[in-house]
């Protein structure tokens, strides 16, 4: 069995779909007998080796293990491709929402939202922002469990010195701070997107269908009222802030006439303008919406979403009623906007980074990780070195003391 490694381990089957950077096949794992999905990523197309998006996904999924995050089972290169082996998923949340023969009860919606929030709470605990939440990135397993996939835009946000690109998320799921060009956003962006998905589960159609970034803001403000500096302090200083004609809020009740009070309350907390006041995934999970009736439906009892048909690779043939955002065009923005040397690794931006992070330990102007900053990377000078050698014995003793202590 030990020679069943790499490509030899899998028996390839039908094509499942076409993604932005590769084709997905169904396959059988000869070692475990398990059905898997293999994402084949073309290499070297742009003479830049392994695709950054794919690499990001690999890097993060190798570290993230949770029942609500898709499992990356294996990775292997073959010829001019890199193959990512995932657990096989029968459908996705977009399929559930769009299938008009599926009826979703309040308990079903609660179940989906609980799984989605668990996935995001886990990611945020691990300091990962997903940044591309939308219904078709929540995949559904045979047993009804929903898992988060597509980590190609995800980022570790533990480093406070990083500025991020605001060109993330499909437009309809983009938080207002992103639309205003914020580059120092946090987990709140994922929560906003989840709120949009929540609304979409209730309404059974995308909630805020902006046709441009500007229009998206307009749609948001039309729904929740134009925010003021009082509700959202700091808003007017965001990079792309522009003033909108004040628009009074519709009450949430008008927007969602048939949901419970608890449901309305959690929605309100997730749709909060000020990202600092927006509820966290962890807090949302302990909101009373989840503890009062009806109890969330057990995943294996959820209405069966339509099983993917062979070659059904996109949404347009599923339901003529709902329009998708230019499905692939949203991705135009992702490659390296925040990763090219000009905006990130190159020296011109270090000043920006530093300025943006003002109160970091080490004091202003001290940017330890910047190589363009000579004083950030000194070697120990030779005086220090010989001094060190002399003091080595002494130190040894001193250390032994502290060890005994």
């Amino acid at each position: 069995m030990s020679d069943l490694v790499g490509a030899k381990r899998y028996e390839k089957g039908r094509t499942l779909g076409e993604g932005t950077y590769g084709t997905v096949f169904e396959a059988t794992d000869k070692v475990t007998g398990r059905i898997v999905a293999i994402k084949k990523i073309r290499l070297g197309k742009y003479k830049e080796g392994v695709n950054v998006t794919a690499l990001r996904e690999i890097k993060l999924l190798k570290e993230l293990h949770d029942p609500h995050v898709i499992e990356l089972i294996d990775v292997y290169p073959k010829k001019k491709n890199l193959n990512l082996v995932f657990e096989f998923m029968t459908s996705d949340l977009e399929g559930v929402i769009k299938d008009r023969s599926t009826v979703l009860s309040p308990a079903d919606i609660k179940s989906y939202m609980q799984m989605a929030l668990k996935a995001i709470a886990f990611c945020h605990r691990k300091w990962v922002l997903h940044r591309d939440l939308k219904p078709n990135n929540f995949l559904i397993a045979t047993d009804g469990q929903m898992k988060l996939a597509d980590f190609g835009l995800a980022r570790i946000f533990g480093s406070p010195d990083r500025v991020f690109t605001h060109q993330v998320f499909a437009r309809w799921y983009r938080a207002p701070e992103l639309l205003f060009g914020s580059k120092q956003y946090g987990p709140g962006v994922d929560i906003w997107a989840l709120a949009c998905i929540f609304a979409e589960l209730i309404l059974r159609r995308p909630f805020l269908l902006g046709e441009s970034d500007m229009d998206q803001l307009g749609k948001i403000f039309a729904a929740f009222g134009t925010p003021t500096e009082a509700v959202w302090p700091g808003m007017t200083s965001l990079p792309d802030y522009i003033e909108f004609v004040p628009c009074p809020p519709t009450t949430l009740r008008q927007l969602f006439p048939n949901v419970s009070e608890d449901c309305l309350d959690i929605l309100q907390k997730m749709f909060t303008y000020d990202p600092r006041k927006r509820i966290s995934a962890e807090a949302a999970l302990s909101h009373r919406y989840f503890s009062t009736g009806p109890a969330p439906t057990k995943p294996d009892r959820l209405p069966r979403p339509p099983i993917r048909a062979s070659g059904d690779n996109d949404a347009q043939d599923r339901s003529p009623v709902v329009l998708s955002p230019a499905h692939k065009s949203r991705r135009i923005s992702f490659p390296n906007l925040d990763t090219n040397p000009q905006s990130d690794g190159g020296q011109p931006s270090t000043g920006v980074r530093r300025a943006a992070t003002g109160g970091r330990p080490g004091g202003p102007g001290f940017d330890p990780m910047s190589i363009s900053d000579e004083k950030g990377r000194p070697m120990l000078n030779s005086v220090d070195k010989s001094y060190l050698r002399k003091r080595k014995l002494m130190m040894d003793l001193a250390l032994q003391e502290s060890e005994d202590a």
Partner: protein
Amino acid sequence: MAADFWASYQSKQLLSVEEVSRVAEEDLELGLTLQDTRLIKIAMTTYMRDLAQQAKLRQRVVATAVCYMRRMYVSKSLCEYDPRLVAPACLYLASKAEESVAQAKLLVFYAKKLKPGPENGAYQLEVKDLLDMELRVLEALDFRLVVYHPYRAAVQYLNDAKLTDVMQTTWSLLNDVYRTDLPLLHPPHVVALGCIHLAAFLKDRDAKPWLEDLKADMHAVRAVQMELLDHYEQYANIDPALTAAAMAKLPIRTRAART
């Protein structure tokens, strides 16, 4: 994941001194000694740093790249994975993993200008070599790319210990840590503490009471210091001829050199 070292893969694969001090069978056959392999890795660490400086890559990219290289050679031989190729490939991969992507073409351009080590006129690197090696490195690393570093922990500790005046010295020591296999042996916060204690000694400050308060694992902190001190003792002034001799034992494996 910055604060989540213990849940990471890295925490589960800390190695022992014996494990990082093995010389691969194939390398032994070529006459490479443990000392040779160490010299080569130090030379490559310097090379990566210089190359990164030319290509304007962040320090963090270098730190990650050096860890990739050192981790690779725990299981792979130098002769099969030519360090002159591995070094730029690790930098390239780390630049992607750390979200400040370098252009392959640019990296190759600088790699051509800046020859690795003191010899090798025949050595030529092409984009194709770099991309091929990137994939081999990825495989050798089992696609595990997240690396934690001691810098941030060190800053926090220094602030906490009110020892910010030894920041520069600590930093120098931390940078030198990457010239050793220490990052593979100890968790980043222990490495940070080892460097802080050493730095405090150098500057006649006493970090001991603070370390005791912290209930740090003094045995590990001490091990870090001793390893660093050994390094300074043995490799503070390396004779370039020794490194050259070690490198000369390796066959040249770039495409350009073969054709």
